[in-house]
C-alpha cells in the first residue's frame, strides 16, 4: 500500500503529460550515481585493503641486528623456541643486498655497506612480547625489535583519511543530488501550475497531487541512478585488473561480497532519497497555496 502511488492509472499518468526521461533530471541523477558508485567502490576497496594490510601485519614483528647476521641461525632458533611465536622468517644478507640493489645499484654489494640482519616473526594472540624480547637480547644484545604496524602506520592513516574523504564525497554528492531534485520538483510544479490549480479546484488533495510528481521524479531518478550505476560498474570492471592486483598485494579481495551488495543498493538508495526529497518539496510548495 505504501508504494501504491508508484502504480498510477493511465489516466493519472496523462495528467502530467506523457513525456518521460526528457528533462535534465535523469541525466543529473545518472552523473551523481556514476560518481557515487566510483567513489564508494574506491572507498570500500581502500577500507578492505587497509583491513587486509592491518590483519597481515598486526602480529608481525621484525628483529634487526646491525652489522650483519653472524649469529642469525642462533637467533632464529631462539625465536622458534619462544612461546607464542607462530612463525619465523629470516631474511638473509644476500636477499637484503639484492633488494638494496634495486635502489643502490652495484654499490649494494660493497663490503663497505653495512647490511643488518633481519628476522621477521609472527606472534599468536596473547604472546608475551617481553619474554620474547629477553630471549632475543640474550642472543643478540644490540638487536632492535619493531612492530610492522608501526612502520606502516602513516600509510594506514592516509588510507583511513582517504576512506573518510570518500565517505564525505558520497554524502556531498547525495546532497547535491537532493538539491537537484528540489530544483527539478520546483520546475515541475511551475510547469504544471495550471494543472495543479485546476485539480485543486475540483477537489484534489495535496497528497493526490504530490503522488503525481513524486512518481514522475521517482521514475526519472530510478532510470538515472540505474544508468549511472551501470556505467560506474562498467568502469569498475574495466579497472578490475588493477583492483585484483591490489587484492593480491594485500592477500585479500579489494571489494567483498557485502560491499558488492552495498554498491548494488546505492542506485536504489539514491532513488529513495530523490523520491523523499520530491515529496517533501512538493508538499511544502502546495501548502503555500490555498
Amino acid at each position, binding site marked *: 500500500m505504501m508504494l501504491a502511488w508508484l502504480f498510477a492509472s493511465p489516466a493519472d499518468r*496523462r495528467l502530467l503529460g506523457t513525456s518521460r526521461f526528457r528533462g535534465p533530471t535523469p541525466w543529473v541523477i545518472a552523473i551523481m550515481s556514476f560518481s557515487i558508485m566510483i567513489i564508494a567502490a574506491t572507498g570500500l576497496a581502500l577500507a578492505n585493503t587497509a583491513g587486509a594490510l592491518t590483519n597481515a601485519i598486526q602480529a608481525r614483528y621484525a628483529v634487526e641486528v646491525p652489522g650483519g647476521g653472524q649469529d642469525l641461525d642462533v637467533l632464529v632458533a631462539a625465536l622458534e623456541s619462544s612461546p607464542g611465536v607462530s612463525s619465523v622468517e629470516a631474511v638473509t644478507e644476500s636477499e637484503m643486498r639484492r633488494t638494496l640493489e634495486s635502489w643502490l645499484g652495484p654499490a649494494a654489494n660493497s663490503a663497505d655497506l653495512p647490511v643488518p640482519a633481519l628476522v621477521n616473526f609472527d606472534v599468536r594472540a596473547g604472546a608475551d612480547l617481553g619474554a620474547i624480547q629477553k630471549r632475543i637480547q640474550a642472543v643478540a644484545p644490540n638487536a632492535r625489535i619493531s612492530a610492522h604496524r608501526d612502520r606502516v602506520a602513516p600509510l594506514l592513516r592516509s588510507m583511513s583519511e582517504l576512506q573518510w574523504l570518500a565517505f564525505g564525497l558520497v554524502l556531498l554528492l547525495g546532497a547535491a543530488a537532493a538539491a537537484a531534485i528540489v530544483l527539478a520538483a520546483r520546475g515541475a510544479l511551475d510547469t504544471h501550475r495550471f494543472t495543479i490549480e485546476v485539480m485543486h479546484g475540483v*477537489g484534489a488533495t495535496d497528497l493526490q497531487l504530490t503522488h503525481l510528481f513524486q512518481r514522475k521524479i521517482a521514475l526519472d531518478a530510478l532510470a538515472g541512478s540505474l544508468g549511472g550505476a551501470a556505467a560506474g560498474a562498467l568502469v569498475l570492471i574495466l579497472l578490475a585488473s588493477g583492483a585484483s592486483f591490489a587484492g593480491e598485494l594485500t592477500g585479500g579481495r579489494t571489494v567483498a561480497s557485502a560491499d558488492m551488495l552495498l554498491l548494488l543498493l546505492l542506485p536504489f538508495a539514491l532513488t529513495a532519497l530523490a523520491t523523499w526529497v520530491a515529496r517533501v518539496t512538493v508538499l511544502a510548495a502546495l501548502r503555500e497555496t490555498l
Partner: protein
Amino acid sequence: MRAKAGREGKLPAIAEFDSVGLRYGTGAEVLRDLDFRLSEGSFYFLTGPSGAGKTSLLKLLYLAQRPTRGRIRLFGEELSEAPRESLPPYRRRIGVVFQDFRLIRHLSAFDNVALPLRVAGATEEEVEGPVREMLAWVGLADRASARPPTLSGGEQQRVAIARAVINRPELLVADEPTGNVDAEMAQRLLHLFTALNRLGTTVVVATHDVALINATPGAQLVRLENGGMADPTGLLRNPPQGRR
C-alpha cells in the same frame, strides 16, 4: 433586484456571508461588508461593473480565496478559517465554470470531464458511462477524444460545463460563462444551467449579459458595486421568513 421572496424564506442557505471583506496583499478592500445568504436550489445572477469584485466574490464561493475578515458558511459549515486540508471535500461539492474555460490542454475532452470523478476516487468503469453521458448531454459525444486546442470556443465552454457538473455539484458557480461564445451558444449554455437548477443545483452566474438575465425570469439578481453589495430592498440580507 428580483427575488422570489416566499421561496427564499423557506429554503435553507447553501452559502452565508457575514461581514465579509477581502483585500489582496496590502491593497484596498476589493470586497467589503458582504452580508447575504444564497438559498439552496436557487438561481442567481451576479452583476456589476468591471472591477466591482464579482470574480473575487466567486473565488470566495468556490473556496479559491479566504476572506480577510468576516465569516463564510458553506453547506452549513464555517469554512473561512477551516484548515486547508479540510477544503477538498467541500470543493468536490462545487462546480466552477470559467470565462477562459480552464481546460487542461494536453488532456482530451473526455479526460477533462472525467477529472472530478477521478479525483473523487471513481474507478475507470465508474467514469466511462457518466462521462460519455455528460458529453452527449452537452452535444459533444463525438468530440470525446479531441483536445481543447482543437475545439471551438463554444465546444470548450461546454466541456468546461460538463466538467463542472459531472459530480452533480450542489453549487454551480460560473464566471462570465458566455463571455467567449456567440449569442446562440450563450442561450444553449443558459439552458444547461437552468436544467441543472431544475435538478436542484444552486446556480450563481456572474455576467454582464443582459439578454441572458432577461431570458431567465425566475432568477434572482445580485449587484455588486465598488466591492459592496447593492441590496436596496434588503432581500438578500434579511430574506422574508429567513432561517438565518
